[in-house]
């Protein structure tokens, strides 16, 4: 699965994208957030406060209960500040 990071997520992760092998039990966004959060200390701080996380799957904003599969492009970023 291709994961993209923007703004503070890109800065703190130190990368703008990565390819992960999606474990078979990670079937929705919430489980992916938990899985990423458990990877290391850095990502655990970044992925703890769900209020500050926005997720897009295939370039559409989604809720945490959205199902995902390994072909999806998933992006993590903070609340948007356009305009």
């Amino acid at each position, binding site marked *: 699965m291709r994961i*993209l990071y*923007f*703004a*503070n997520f*890109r800065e703190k992760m130190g990368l703008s994208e990565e390819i992960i092998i999606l474990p078979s039990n990670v079937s929705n966004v919430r489980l992916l957030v938990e899985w990423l959060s458990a990877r290391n200390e850095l990502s655990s701080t970044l992925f703890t406060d769900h209020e500050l996380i926005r997720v*897009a799957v295939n*370039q*559409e*904003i989604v809720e945490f209960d959205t199902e995902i599969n390994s072909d999806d492009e998933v*992006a993590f*970023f*903070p*609340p*948007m*500040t*356009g*305009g």
Partner: protein
Amino acid sequence: MIRVQSEDFDIGDEIAIISNQKKNIGGICSFTGLVREFDLNNKIQTMTLEHYPGMTEKQLDKIEKEANNRWELSDSLIIHRYGRLKPKDKIVLVITASIHRKAAFESCEFLMDWLKTKAPFWKMEETDSGSHWVAAKSSDDLEVEKWSTKKK
């Protein structure tokens, strides 16, 4: 039409193009967003806009269509810049043209409210006292919510 670009734009030129190309326009409304000079008491040196290429264009397209569904518009334009900007630089331009003034005003505000919270842009401000990501305002969420209940 939507455009996502790093280059500056000329407001007068964009309005002229719309008024010259379309027939029977009663009024044109435009909003231009600028980089502020101060954030609270801190002087802003630069503002860098990051965005999600691909998703940005897709979302802007979608909302422009939505505005055209809700209001009777002769034409509409959204230009949103990205990259490193200075105070007073233009960030965003929304133009709506209609046979009726109310449709032009309302759809222009609708598009701006929507861009604030739903367009995948993020602003990094560099000030005298350091740099930070601009936090989203909950008041902006409320502004956009009102359109989900409001009838045209």
